[in-house]
């Protein structure tokens, strides 16, 4: 309390508590995002384990039989690319909103949202038009099993981004530049920023997962 200009002694008990839980909520957003990534890693880990286990076992020579037509490389690359670009755009415009440019972020976030939704849509198309039967091989099983899960999680991330875009709308642009006059407004801005940071980290994590999955399923099987 010494290094800030705030004067805590002047706070009413209610404001004190509001500030306390406000800060707890900010930390909870930060912690929650990391914890969610941990849980997701273990969930994806089940599929990564299945991938490597079945590949090394190659039971009856049917991990990836030579007769198997692999998934469309162009589709997989495009989906992965869309997600990576979406995450990159979101990360780039995050810097803009940190610099106080709300509209720049809004435009960028919209682009990121459209790219992410396009990836989800394309993924659905790809799963509906697989060139192999799901049970044709070990590889086919892991592929058919993993991507719907990833798809649902990416879709949920996009819903989160959409919520953030809607949440940003009523916040005045000036609030990102200087401290708003009331606690309520300042808290709203800070919570939005915390949620946005958390989202960006999670979305980047999912983009990295998409790259790893792309390497595993399209390049090295």
């Amino acid at each position, binding site marked *: 309390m010494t290094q800030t200009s705030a004067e805590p002694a002047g706070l009413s008990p209610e404001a004190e508590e509001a500030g*306390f839980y406000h800060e707890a909520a900010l930390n909870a957003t930060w912690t929650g995002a990391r914890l969610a990534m941990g849980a997701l890693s273990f969930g994806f880990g*089940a599929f990564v384990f299945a991938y490597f286990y079945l590949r090394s076992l190659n*039971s009856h020579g049917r991990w990836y039989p030579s007769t198997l037509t692999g998934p469309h490389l162009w589709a997989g690359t495009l989906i992965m690319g869309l997600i990576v670009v979406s995450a990159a755009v979101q990360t780039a415009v995050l810097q803009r909103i940190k610099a106080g440019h709300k509209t720049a972020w809004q435009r960028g976030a919209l682009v990121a949202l459209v790219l992410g939704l396009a990836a989800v849509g394309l993924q659905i198309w790809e799963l509906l038009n697989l060139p192999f039967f799901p049970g044709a091989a070990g590889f086919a099983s892991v592929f058919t099993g993993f991507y719907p899960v990833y798809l649902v999680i990416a879709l949920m991330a996009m819903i989160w981004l959409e919520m953030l875009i809607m949440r940003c709308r009523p916040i005045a642009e000036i609030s990102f530049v200087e401290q708003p006059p009331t606690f309520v407004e300042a808290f709203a801005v800070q919570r939005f920023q915390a949620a946005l940071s958390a989202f960006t980290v999670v979305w980047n994590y999912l983009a990295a997962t998409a790259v790893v999955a792309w390497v595993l399923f399209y390049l090295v099987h």
Partner: protein
Amino acid sequence: MAIDIQPEKVKGPGGREPGASRPARPWWLRPAIHTAVAGAVIGYVVGHWLGNFLGSNYQQLPLSDSSDLPIVLGYLLAVVGWIAGLGVFNDPLRQMTGRPVPVEEEDASAAAGLARYFRYSLDHKVVGIQYLVGMIIYFCTAGLFAMAIRAELLSPAYHIFSSSTYVELVGEHGTMMMMLMSSLVVGPFGNYLVPIMIGSKRVAFPRIEALSFWLTPAAFLILFSSLMLGGFPFGWTGYAPLSIQATQGADSYAVAFGLMGISIILAGFNIIVTVICYRAPGMRWSRLPMFVWSMLATSVLMVLAAPVLVGGMYMIITDRTVQTAFFADQLGGSSYLYQNLFWFFGHPEVYILALPGFGIVSEIIPVFCRKPLFGYKTAAAGMIGVTVLSFFVWQHHLFDSGLNPDMRPLFMLTTELISIPTGLIYLVAMGTFWKAKIRFTVPMLFALGMYFNFLIGGISGVFLSDVPADTTEHGSFFVMAHFHYTIMGGLIFAFMAGVYYWLPKMMGIKLNQTIGKIHFWTMFIFFNSTFLPLFAVGLAGQPRRVFEYASNLQTINDWVSISAFCLGGSILIFVINFVWSTVIAREREEGNPWQSRGLEWQVASPPPPGNFARIPVVLSGPYEYGTPGAPPVADLNPPAGVVAAAFTGAPTAAAEA
């Protein structure tokens, strides 16, 4: 930062303007359990139709069952309808459309009497009570299945049930106990007490917490409905070729278990973040009550292990519906894959079931020994040690499976290592008992019973960790007796201790202590009389889950069965005591009946909305018994500025945004 300070109430997460209170709708339109049931029915019908529609022209593998897709989609959409009916999606939808999100704590209808227990309530104390009642119902249902199993085992050859009914009973009992009892302590006591014990007025994610509860009745009902589809013949483990081969009842198993996996992920997620971020000023890690440590450790296991279970159940479902071949050996899959995934979850799961028990007894014994907890840091380290090690032992379930024989010494070592942190729990107990002033209250009796039972359970576990000895014991009644000693004898006894200890806090009502003592002694005697002989039965060569056994084992099996019925009677005494004390007698219990220093006992019983009038400032640890000049555990009405000092200047997440 010269800003106006307005004494406005801060809002829940979401950061929206506090909306005007929602227009009052007639009760039957307000989201509650009846709308949830309606949603579930609609969802099931839609999902079933969708499954038939999608599956009508789908290529099938030989011998596969073509009607699984409608069942699975029906269940999944029924769950979606169920939670939609509860109003889970209302706030996210408001956020998505940019409408204000109401502050739930101020929602007028949320506070309304008994009805709030049938709603998607965001009050952690309501969720705790919902969990408590739910868990007792699930436990008793699963216990009745156990009675039925024991009835069948009265005779080696004469059958009460058909073999198909018997495997259904075995599967229902095992699965219901293992999956639903994961939340036995985290649900009721974790959700209810952890925020109070860390001095918080709220939890981090009330919506997630409430959702985690409302998924449990859905999972329970789906699992139960398996009986209508012919049950499932593979016990709680669901080993793969059998679970792929089995009829539609297996769909219920996979959906219900996966759903419960999601529920425990959500429950654990909320607890972890709450403990990390919402501790009151002064609640340092070194002052955290042992129970909170155990909840934290359990929650870590839940959040990290359960996703693997969800993955495994998902693979069963895809193998059964869209005909993937994860577990089909001839098609490039492997049945070992399932065993690995399942036990990678399954072993942490048994510690999900053990750690809360350690936490409860460690919390209770200092109160009734009137002494500080001996070796506080050792106890916390023991729990953390168990948590970490439990991820590295899963292949001891596969010692005879033919998998990785070269890894056996390693898994033997890790399994035996886990007895070191577990032993620390005993060291802590024994140190606490040293020169204590032991008060034989009902919670203390149950805690002592837990230490006695878990000792047998733990030591028998060491026998199982040794590969040569395990060759005889694996898959026999010895294993079955072992884990009943750790789970039933450990967790359930600790849970009972918790009920007798904390129910006065949670409901402001005293449980009858005389009936409580009768309950304890009958339960303790008949529990041991049921499960101790089963070690011998197992060593004598009776495998688990059989309904025919060697005729020379009939006497001992009959003894066990009769003891099991008496054990069931003892649970009935508990239920009667619970219902009689909370519904009929309702004897008020004010204040702090156990003279406990726990922070939760410093507030009224039951705690007022918001738990504390002001954020308390914690001044000392919870176990400072016997120290005459010990400061009170917390300042419940701290002077102005103390709470503010705890947060201003601290780094915030917003600083990074």
